[in-house]
């Protein structure tokens, strides 16, 4: 059987691919886990940080709207107190989570969530 140039290239390609995807499978790797388990408390904390950020952005936007005379002072005050109320609730929950984690560590997070 004659080995032509394309065949040689194909052989090279397939060898290269097998080596590339095979090395991690057969090489020595540290025994680490690439993905940590989803921790509900950590997820809630992450989510609350995003919500807090969104509320702060809303407050900033409200300020811009007030400056641009898009909204009356009364309306702006009413909306601000509503957003601030939500933000305070979120900040309180964040603090609560932080305190509990400081006190009991991450392992207590599940119990805390249930409580």
């Amino acid at each position, binding site marked *: 059987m004659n080995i032509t140039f394309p065949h040689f290239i*194909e052989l090279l390609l397939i060898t290269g691919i097998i080596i590339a995807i095979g090395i*991690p499978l057969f090489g020595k790797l540290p025994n680490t886990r*690439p993905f940590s388990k989803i921790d509900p408390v950590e997820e809630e904390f992450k989510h609350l940080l995003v919500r807090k950020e969104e509320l702060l952005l809303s407050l900033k936007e409200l300020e811009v709207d007030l*400056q*641009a005379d898009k909204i009356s002072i*009364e*309306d702006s005050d009413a909306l601000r107190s509503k957003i601030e109320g939500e933000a305070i609730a979120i900040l309180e929950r964040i603090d609560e989570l932080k305190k509990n984690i400081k006190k009991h560590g991450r392992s207590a997070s599940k119990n805390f969530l249930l409580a």
Partner: protein
Amino acid sequence: MNDIGEFTLMIALATSLYGTVAYVMAARGNRIDLYLSADKVPLITWACIMISSIALWKAFFTNDFSLQYVYAYSNIELDYFYKFSSFWGGQKGSLLFWALILTSYMMVVHIQNRSKNLIVVPYAMAVMLAITCFFLFLLNFSTNPFERIPLPPEDGRGLNPLLQNYWMVIHPPTLYLGYVGFTVPFAFAMAALISKNLDDAWIRLTRKWTVVSWFFLCMGNLFGASWAYVELGWGGYWAWDPVENAAFMPLIVATAYLHSVMIQEKKDMMKVWNMSLILLTFVMTIFGTFITRSGLIQSVHTFDEATLGYYFLGLLFFIIAVCTALIISRLPLLKSKNELDSFLSREAGFLFNNLLLLGIAFATFWGTIFPIISEAIRGVKITVGPPFYNQVNVPIGLALLALIGIGPIIAWRKATWSNLKKNFLKPLMFALIGGAILFPVVPLSNRSEIYTYIAFILCIFVLSSMLIEFYKGTMARYASSETYLGALGSLIWNNKRRYGGYTVHIGVVMIYAGIAASSSYGIHTEKRLKIGETIEIRDYMLRYEKLAAIQATSVKTRIIAQLAVEKDGKKIWTARPEKEFYKGQNQPVSEVDVRSTLASDLYVILADFSEDESATIKVYHNPMVKWLWTGGWIIALGTMVCAWPDRLEQRRRLERLKLQKIVFSPAQE
């Protein structure tokens, strides 16, 4: 090279199959070895498909007619520019092109998320690789672009003359960039569902992908309309052809998604709705592909060898079934904690906008599939033409236009009477004054003209509300800036999403105005002319000067009519419409000549000619068509602003991660 191209297609299929399985196993078993191994697959698959693509392009450029695909879509005389685009001129090459774009996107996603180690990433990569597998399966076993001809002919059949147009070089890749782009948010949505990681992280990860894909889809539709306008020679740009609809529907659903996703980000609501919308967008892109490749519908846009219907139908049903099952099983996790504060708020406006957009999408979908259903059930082929679409979509479209104007000026959460009065008064006043000025000028003799009049009033309302937004924002910033331009610049720079979005809306308004005017006030006339005779339309007089024949290439002959165009007795332009005859093609191709201004287009067609040099000339006067294309470029500008990297947002994200790390660091254990 053909052998290598065919071989790498097979290798790409094998590696992407491996990658799909390995990524899922790595995520489920939390195995680093499998993850690192699977992580090589995106690059390998992309490289293999790139090699296949280069092989096919090389075959086109070297006139290798031993490949059936090159024989069918090229010939020796074909311009290099079109040899390049012949790659996607037929079904086989276009599928390879799809796979190339998909794997290129996958590479970018892979690089973007390599060090993030989020659980959704391997699942998203697995979904993208699984979709790649589907296309590679078709390319290897059903529609191979490297299929050989045992006895290669000396020359090819050539590219369809209708496709030998510069818009046809740009339009398909742009559309594909949009179509394929939605695979990324879809894959992340699926990944979020599979991994039960259902906060809005996947939305933030794919926000830019959605905006960019939407932009390409939008421009793809516009470029397609441009091609139809200059190449098909019927004086219009949109005919509600099923294939046009197939590209239009995902755009509409994606627009709904783009808006509703903002409510989820802002108020943590509508999770199920957003999830459904992105899945529906992707389903619509596959449906569009099904329409063009199933052979069910005959259109200038479908592929000649459309034989892949069952495969795409199978994929469609599979995706719908899996997505529905996943959404239902994750319903408790997708429940929103918040509710709408008021129906008189911007959130509610977005909700209504979504309903209207879905109404348009559904009406278009129904009009597209009804002839297929009718033929399948009753054996009667029914054509659903523009009157149906116009009757349903125009009123909904007008309501949507009003909402574009209302959205930015109504308050988030809850609008009050004072808010409405403050922000609505001026735009409403401008709209009413505009309406009063236009009233004696525009004709109002039929329903279409009345709709157009309403559209103009609404366009003025929206445009003035947008411009007032820019004005108010600039004036508020002017206090801290030296110049008005500086204030405007910093306003846009610091609120890219908001003002980029407004810019896109200005582009949309221009498109609305262009469509309304050109579809209602367009007129046309036709006359058989001898040399020296004239034809008149509106204020223009066209004098037929001569007819010339030019042998452009050995396969193409051009017959050109020359007409001097006069306005108020003064010559303003020379029109040169032509007919092109291609060797081996039965039908000649019309090449229209257009004089385009913002006010109107003068569109001249050489419909027919005879040996005595008399010719039938058709002239269209289409008002404001240029507004459509200009609106497109404004949309491009707005999208660029929206998609521009936001340093503040990056900083906020990093701060969040830092805080998270401090609180959840192992030292806490």
